[in-house]
């Protein structure tokens, strides 16, 4: 193992990584649990915001599951991400109710304004643009969320204003 072992793996800040200890403990607790892989992946996703490859190696060792199988499972589910995400995740609802009320236009506008493809993160790491399913707020369609905040009854013209709130 490299000396990166206990260092933060999401950047080069060199800080010791307490998260890894927590993850290792979680892996250990799930060693003998049937179907334990997915709960472990959820925990890592929650802790890091994505699934860092070197953390997955610990999973492979700890649960005794080959890396290929872990990748197979991780890539099957949309919820897991193998790439780090931006500081703010913009989730534009593309559920049917939102779609018929013009969600595609909103999504396209974000993509243009941020110069980023759907599902990707801006170069400065500030925004990730995602399309999601029904958020359960169809009454306010079209809808998007940024973090916990929900924005409803959107028009394309709202997009720059919303971005400004987070650009400061």
């Amino acid at each position, binding site marked *: 193992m490299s000396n990166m072992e206990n260092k933060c793996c999401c950047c080069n800040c060199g800080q010791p990584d307490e998260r890894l200890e927590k993850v290792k403990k979680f892996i250990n607790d799930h060693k003998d649990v*049937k*179907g*334990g*892989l*997915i*709960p472990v*992946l*959820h925990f890592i996703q929650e802790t890091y915001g994505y699934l860092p490859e070197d953390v997955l190696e610990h999973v492979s060792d700890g649960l005794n599951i080959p890396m290929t199988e872990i990748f*197979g*499972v991780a890539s*099957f*589910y*949309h*919820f*897991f991400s193998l790439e780090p995400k931006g500081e703010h995740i913009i989730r534009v609802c*593309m*559920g*049917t*109710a939102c*779609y*018929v*009320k013009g969600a595609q236009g909103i999504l396209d506008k974000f993509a243009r304004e941020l110069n980023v493809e759907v599902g990707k993160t801006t170069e400065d790491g500030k925004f990730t643009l995602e399309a*999601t*399913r*029904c*958020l*359960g*707020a*169809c*009454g*306010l*369609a079209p*809808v998007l969320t940024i973090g916990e905040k*929900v*924005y*409803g009854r959107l028009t394309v013209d709202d997009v720059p204003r919303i971005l400004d709130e987070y650009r400061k």
Partner: protein
Amino acid sequence: MVKYRMDLLVCGGTGCQASGSSEVVETFKKEIEKEGLENEIQVITTGCFGFCEKGPIVKISPDNVFYVEVTPEKAVRIVKEHIIKGRVVEDYLYKEPETKEVLHEQNEMPFYKKQLRIALRNCGFIDPENIYEYIAVDGYQALGKVLTEMTPEKVIEEIKRSGLRGRGGGGFPTGVKWEMTRKSKSNQKYVICNADEGDPGAFMDRSILEGDPHSVLEAMAICGYCIGADKGYIYIRAEYPLAIQRLRIAINQAYEFGLLGKNILGTGFNFDIDLKYGAGAFICGEETALINSIEGGRGEPTVKPPFPAQKGLWKQPTNINNVETFANICPILLKGADWFSSIGTEKSKGTKVFALAGKVNNVGLVEVPMGLTLREIIYELGGGIKGDKKFKAVQTGGPSGGCIPAQNLDTPIDYDTLTQIGSMMGSGGMIVMDEDDCMVNIAKFYLEFSCEESCGRCTACRVGNTRMLEILNEITEGKGTMEHLDELKELGQIIKDSSLCGLGQTSPNPVLSTMNFFWDEYVAHVKDKNCPAGVCTALLKYFILPDKCVGCTACAKVCPTNAISGEVRKTHIIDQEKCIKCGACMATCRFNAITRR
């Protein structure tokens, strides 16, 4: 316990929270404290009332007054006027949009008049985070009755007699499924609640779990007793944080009260419930895929038989039901199978929850008896089409369903009639579309969804759907031919016939049903290279309106292909050959002189 003289029920569903209901709750609490009434008036955050369109909703009980679109400012006035002086604030009540008549009570409102709430009975009435409130509305009585007075066979018989069918889409008789699982021999069996809610336009399962989680826990325990299982799992989407939080609270409370765990109510019956998180794969809503996912692998479906009732989770007999199915169980056992089967149609008993959305005036969750017509739902509950536009179609059944045109609006809806008209009940999404929606584009929307969600195992589904999508793309880009339309029909049939699971077997439905009912629209795209609804951008043409154009030349300057010509202060024109339909001219024109059609 303190006795309150009045309850303020504030909707804390996702829709109302997005409209600011948390601030409203804060204001109510602050104002009530200021007046020193905190021991008399209780503020309760409830689950969804369904009427998301007019949120945040506040209901005052026992006065039974229903305020809509409440803001913190309005909350201050409601406290001053209604709560202190006992005067209803008429300005904030719901007004009948046509007659402008002020309606005081919930059940006078057209949105609620024809509703019959069984699965949603407690949503909006109780605090979902407080087990006492559930118990106060007969909660856990059905479990008590079952464990002390009824044999498993008798319960199953009652559920069978009620005629309850699965609300997750398939409509399989619930009692029969329980009986099958009961008869499978094994020491270990499981109960699973399917809360994966995959239909991209539906949110009833989430509302039930957010508004009344105990009703599902209680029904799962009853199911466990009937089939002989002591362990249950709820498979829930990780994207539903509020529902997960409320379920966790409810499970902990149920354990504390001895309503889950060992020796429930002293009867010797044991039952545990755990949560399992889905991770955003639509196919995991399919029961065999769901089981593979709980086991920790890729959520791919497997061939049935064996059915989960025979060989399910970890190869043991497993009973899987949908959230809404479970939510119907306790009322049936308390009020009786005869009561339940008196509601609905001959073959579809009880009610169904629909997520009514799209171009209707009242968007929200509605629960209605089976057999109501689409017209009643859309025009009475839904208040008709938004902005006086013309109704075009209603989509039911999500990506497995189809589009139903105006001529079928008077069909009484149940599982079987919807299938007969080329659609499906599905999980209850109901999206209303008007003249501005393009049917080819809607079909494409659903097919894109199915392509993305296909697990890729069956060639017909993987390759076939991708090919169908390619064709639809060509059609909407103006490159379609009549042969393409034949190919779509043929491929659709092949995919339906040769796919292993329900996803592939139904994924061509949105395309086939729109081709069936809106053939002319497909032909217009293919032959006339025209999108009648004005949606498919590649088929649109830009025109300058002579009576509005002042000849400012702004459009000509921004046009990247120099397609616009004309002299200063004279009407300009667009050369259709050169136009690349970028829309820059339309965005620039300050006189609304450019249209697209």
